[in-house]
Each structure stands twice: as C-alpha cells, then as structure tokens.
C-alpha cells in the first residue's frame, strides 16, 4: 500500500525499474533509507558545525594571523566544535562531569521530558499525513487544548486522580474541536486544510491571549498574562521522584503511540484513513466515506496536539501562558516527517529532537552558543531527509534501482 509521501509523485509517468535483483548485502545497506536518515543527521551536524566555527570569536582571532600560524586557526576551530558537540551530548544523554548519579543521568530524563509533547503532537500529525492531510495547525490545537485543560485545572475542584483525568480529557477535547473545524471545512467545502489550519493557529493564539486577560485565568498576584500554578491534583505525577522532572505524561505518550499503531495498522478505521490518503477515489469506490475520514483524522490529530498541551500545562511548565505552545506545533511537523509518520519512528524522532532541545541550556553555558542552533540542525535534518537524492549525491551513495519514495 503506497502512502502520501514527502516526495511528491511527479505528474507524468515515471518508469519504474524492475528491482528485486539479487544484490550484495553491502549494496542493500548503502541503499537503505535508514542510512539516508543517519547521513542526513551527520550532514546537518556538519553544516551547523560550520556555523559554530563561524560564530566563534577565538576562531576569528586566530584566522587573523592564519598565514603565520595556521595551526592556531584549526586548533580554535577544533575546540569550538568539540565544545559544541560535547555540550549537545552532555546536555541530552549523560553528564560525564556529574558528581552524583542523579546529576549523571538527569540529561537523559530531561530529553524524555522535552520529547513528551513532541511525541503526542507528532503522532497526531503522522495520522494526518498518512490520510493525505497536511495539518499545519498543531500549534493552534495545542494552545486551545492547553487553555481548556488549564480552565479545568484552575476552576474546577475535583479529587486527586479524577481531576487530572478530567483535565487531560479537557485538553484532548479542546484540541479535537480546533482540529475538527478544518476537517469539517475540508469535507464540506473543500477548503484547503493547510490554509485553514495556519489561520486557525493565529486565531487560537489570539483567543488564548484574550482568555488570559480574563479574571478566571489571571494569576491574582501578577499583571502578566499568566495563569496561577495548576493545583497538585491536576499535575502529572513525577515518575522518578522529585529529583527529576520526567512526569507521567511521557508514559501516556508511549501508550498513545501503541494506541495509534493499533488504530492505523489493525483497525478498520485506520485502514479507511490510509485508504483515503492513498487514493481517495478508490476509497470512495470501495464504499468508504472520505469526508468522514477527513473529519475524524483532523479531530484525532487535534486531540493528540491537545494532549501535547497537557504535557506542558500539567507537567513541564504547570502554568498556561500565550507562549505555552512555543514552536512545538512546527517542531512536531518535523518530528512526524523524520519519523515517517509511523508511531515508532515518531517516538524516536521526538526523542532525538527532544534531546537537541534539552541540550539548549548546556550549549549556552558550556559552549556559549544560543539554543537557536538546535532549530537550524532540526530544519536541516528534515530538508535532507525529504530529499534522499541530495543526501545520496553528497555522500556518493548508490541510488536504489527501484527508487522507493520516502513516505511521509
């Protein structure tokens, strides 16, 4: 079954070579798309390395007397690069200089915490991509979900356990409504979901900015648009104790990944979603309702993005502000693309990008680099992944006889 791909099929026919010839193991490895992913990451890290070198002051100084002592320039480059890559590793995997075990493993737990909202939103977007829908609206769905959840968290007084459950359902519901709108408009009027979701991002952001000026949401002791901290009954419990910020939202995200896998691979509904994405005409001929699939897919994707909001509001930040969504919605697009819209891939991609985000403070402190370099790496990875021929030509890899397109 072919799926909508990042690499669009060209309009006119493209001769497919008869593949499946016996070939050596080496060739298979060289042609595999996993290798392309790895190489894309390598190429992105290398290119951003150039930025690091360029921005580093001591490299510039040493380059000033490059011709008298060229060694200094390369030494300065090396130390700048070394500091940057070491900071990324120590900020996202383990801290080798730590004095206690807690500090030693804190970076990896931080990575998983940062990955949690990306897993949720990335899973939702992945469902959309496989159904042929480009949902650019995770940003808006996330913030609206977070706002509904925050309302439940602050305004309702419920016992421990039930409160969190209801609040989480609130975030999912808020996101689902915000996802339903473009799905419904697409199904009924053919309005392009890309445009509608982009516009709804800004409508949602403004709506939440306005809600934050209302008394219900406003923190009593502050003039800033920020809610009070969520009550303890509406917070995700910490998994590894109070030393770590990793919360139960991560477990829920993993559970959702299994749920999405079951939905897409094992259920009739998931089959309909994939059919609507692969060939809407064939799906209609087979008696499936494509508009219904569009609406459901967008609502589910919205609900997942809303859950990403719950990870922020009830887990990581514990408050709602207009900046709660940050750039999570757009980051989640890259997560879903890198993970090829498959649940397992999405979780892995989210952990990779979560790790990059988690290394932000370490990059700043140890290497003196702004966190923005992380976004550059992230964007480059996705650009390379999306264009396998480019990566192959950079690394002189043989192209597969049967050009397989990268599934979104």
């Amino acid at each position, binding site marked *: 079954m072919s799926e909508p*791909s*990042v*690499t*669009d*099929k*060209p*309009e*006119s026919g*493209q001769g497919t070579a008869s593949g499946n010839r016996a070939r050596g193991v080496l060739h298979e490895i060289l042609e595999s798309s996993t290798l392309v992913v790895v190489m894309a990451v390598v190429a992105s890290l290398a290119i951003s390395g150039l*930025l690091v070198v360029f*921005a580093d*002051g001591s490299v510039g100084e040493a380059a000033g007397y490059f011709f008298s002592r060229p060694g200094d320039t390369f030494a300065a480059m090396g130390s700048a690069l070394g500091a940057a890559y070491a900071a990324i590793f120590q900020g996202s995997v383990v801290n080798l200089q730590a004095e206690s075990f807690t500090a030693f493993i804190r970076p990896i737990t931080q990575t998983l915490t940062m990955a949690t909202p990306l897993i949720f939103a990335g899973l939702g977007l992945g469902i959309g991509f496989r159904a042929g829908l*480009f949902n*650019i609206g995770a940003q808006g769905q996330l913030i609206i979900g977070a706002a509904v959840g925050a309302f439940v968290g602050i305004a309702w007084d419920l016992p421990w356990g039930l409160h969190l459950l209801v609040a989480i359902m609130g975030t999912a519901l808020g996101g689902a409504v915000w996802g339903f709108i473009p799905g419904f*408009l697409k199904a009924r*009027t*053919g*309005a*392009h979901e*890309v*445009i*509608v979701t*982009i*516009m*709804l*991002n*800004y*409508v949602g952001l*403004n*709506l939440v*900015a*306005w809600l934050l*000026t209302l008394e219900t949401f406003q923190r009593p002791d502050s003039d800033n648009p920020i809610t009070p901290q969520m009550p303890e009954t509406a917070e995700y419990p910490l998994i590894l104790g109070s030393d770590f910020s990793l919360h139960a939202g991560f477990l829920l995200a993993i559970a959702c990944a299994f749920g999405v896998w079951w939905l897409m691979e094992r259920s009739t509904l998931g089959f309909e979603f994939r059919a609507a994405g692969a060939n809407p005409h064939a799906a209609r001929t087979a008696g499936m309702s494509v508009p219904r699939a569009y609406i459901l897919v967008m609502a589910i994707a919205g609900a997942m993005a809303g859950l990403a909001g719950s990870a922020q509001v009830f887990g990581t930040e514990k408050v709602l502000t207009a900046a709660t969504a940050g*750039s999570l919605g*757009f*980051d989640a*697009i*890259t997560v879903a*693309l890198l993970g090829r819209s498959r649940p397992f891939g999405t979780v892995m991609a989210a952990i990779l990008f979560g790790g990059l985000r988690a290394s932000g403070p370490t990059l700043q402190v140890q290497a003196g*680099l*702004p966190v*923005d*370099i*992380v*976004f*550059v790496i*992230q*964007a*480059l990875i*996705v*650009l390379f992944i*999306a*264009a396998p*021929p*480019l990566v192959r030509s950079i690394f002189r890899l043989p192209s597969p006889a049967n050009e397989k397109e990268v599934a*979104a």
Partner: protein
Amino acid sequence: MSASLASTVPGPVAKGSPAASRTRSWKAAIILGIIALFSLVVFGLLTPANTSTEFSFAASTDFAQLPSLTLPATLAVVIFSVIGLALAGWTAYRAWQYRKVGIWLPIVYGMAIMGALLTWAGAGRGESTIQITGLLTSALFLAVPLVFGALAGTLCERSGIINIAIEGQLLAGAFLAALVASMVGNAYVGLIAAPIAGGLVGLLLAIFSTKYWVNQIVVGVVLNMLVIGLTSFFFSTVMTDNPNLNQSLGMPRIPIPLLSEIPILGPVLFRQSLLVYIMYAAVIFLQIMLFRSRWGLRVRSVGEHPKAADTVGIKVNLTRLRNVTLGGAVAGLGGAFFTVASGLAFGREMTAGKGYIALAAMILGRWNPKGALAAALLFGFADALRVQLGIIGSDIPSQFLAMTPYLATILAVAGLVGHARPPAAEGKPYKK
C-alpha cells in the same frame, strides 16, 4: 474582495434561454445586511446618549489645515448603519435582477460601517479624537510587508509552486537589510541586500520542489524554521558581539511635491518612504506583466496546465525556478520594511507571522496583484485600527481585531465569502 461578492455565478448558459439556468446569488446581500444590522443594533445601543465624537483630518504639515469634525454620536451611528442597510438592500435588488454591483458599493459600505464603528469607539472620549489621516497612514505603512509578501506568493503560485516560506523570506530580507545597511552605514543599501536574502530562500524552495520533488508545503515550513534558526543564531552571536552590525537606521519620508498637498489622501499616499513608492510600482508592474505580457501568459500556463505549456516549448521547471526566486526576492524586499524602512534594528523573529497574513492576503486577493494590494490594505487597516483603538482606550479586546484577517481568510477559502480558486497545477511537481 467584496466587489465580487455580489457577482452572480455565470454558470453554463443554455442556448436560447439565458435566464433559465442562472441562479440568483443572495449571499452577498445577506452578509452585508447582517453586518449593517449588527452595526445598527449593537453600536447604536452601546453608544452613550448625548455624547459626541471628534474626527480629526489634519496632518501636522498640511498645506491647508482641515478643521476637525464633531458628530453627535448616536445620530451618526444610526445614519452610518442605515446607509449600510440601504446598500445591502441595493445589492439584493441587483441580485434579483441578475446584475452585478459596481466596485463603489463595497468601498462606500466599508466606509459607512467603519464610520459607525469609529463613532461608537470614540463617543464621549473627551480629549481623544479619532485621527483619520494618522489611521490611514499607518494602515498603508503596516500593509507594506503584506503587499510584498502577497505579491511574492502570487508570483510563485501563478507558476504552480506553493510558497509557505514567505515568512522566512521576509525574515531573511529583514535580517540582511539590517546587517548590510549597518555595515555600510546607509539604510538604502539595505534595500539592495534584502531581495538577495529573500531570493536565496526562494531559490532553495525552487530547487527542492522542482529538482527533488519534495512536497512544497514541507519545504516551506522547514525553510521558515531554518531561517528563524539562522537569523536568531546570528542575532544572538555575531550581532550581539558587534552591536555596530545591527544599528537602527531609518529612511526619511520623501513627500512628493504637489501630490502630497492633496487634503487627507495626499499625506497618506505621497508622504511615505521610498519602499512604499517601490511598492506602488511593483503592484502596477506585476499586474500588467502577469496579465498583459507574453511572460505573464507563459507563467500562468505553467501554473494552470504545465503539460500543455511544455508541449508548446515552455520550459516548465525553469520558469518555476525563475519565478520562485523572483518571488523570494520580492518578499525579501518587503522584509526590509521591518528593519531599515521602519528605522529599527533587527530582532529575533521580528516578522511575527506577517508572512502568513501575506499568504492570506494573496488568497483573498485571488492570486492577482491588485487584489493582493486591496486585501493587504484591509489587513493593514485592521492592524492600524487595533493600535488606534488601543490609544483611545476602546472596549473591544485588541485580540479580536487581530484575529479578523485570519477569520476573513477562513471564510474565503471555505467559499462563504466569494470564491477562491487557486491555479490548477499548484503544488504538483512536474517531470517530463
């Protein structure tokens, strides 16, 4: 955009009985009527009794000073709204006759409803007057990046490439304009640098979508992220270390002799900076080139039916590559608005979503330059209104005014207002 709200759908006309298959379109009349009624009831009731609103038309350097106008608030709101209702009625009458209404109608209607809104907002504010000239001037100024962005989108989409990266092109233009202008010490040099940055982003978009057939929306979104990352990175490293690489240089306003002395419109249109005059030229030039030149015909054929274009010898992918790069350059020039044309230094993510509003303006403007200009001016006006109402302390939450461009676009693409039809081959890569 609302000019064509009233147009009846021509449809396939049966031979002999032209009226038989035509349908009356009541949508426009109904929408205009509802808004005017809303204005009458809500603004009419909310306006405090026995108050007045003062409108001021003067600009500080006017040749002939116009006196300001003080209107009795309630009466004025009612009159404005009734004018709106009458125009809605006229639209309904024309629809019943299967006739169109002229372009004057939506303009007069818009002015009437805005009059009602402003009268209500300014009623009983005492000292605060509604600055009409100031409002229009800032509306035009705020529309500048939107116009350039929408022109860029039009250029790309007319050739069949979706340009989600307008935001990135604006930001890249803003960044390089500030950087180069600061290095040289002359704001005008920024106007040369900005299109280069935007053009490069456009070129990347073009290469990935024509050579590697990567989904154009994916490339656009990722390019935006890349430009945000790159500019923020250089902003917090190189520019922070060397503040003289990021200075706030301004461009003076250049009043055009005679024209700038026309009351009200003169200062608004002809007392602006060079970038605004370039914008006028760009809109007129592209409008003529796209619809009246051989180049334009070729571009549009590539966007509508690439296979047919290819058959007659037009190089489809080359045309797309050129157009998208040119479009990127146009958006980049618009990016200069944020830094050198506004007299500001570069700031992190300073375009703040204007690229997406430009995309909206392109859609509302139906993929043509003059429509893009009208839609961008409308959005610029909404933005200026938000600022003005904030100053006089209105009760309307500014967030709702900020939302209007986005809501208008959703209504447009959903076919509730007008009908938005993109070029047919948009978003589809072409390979022989």
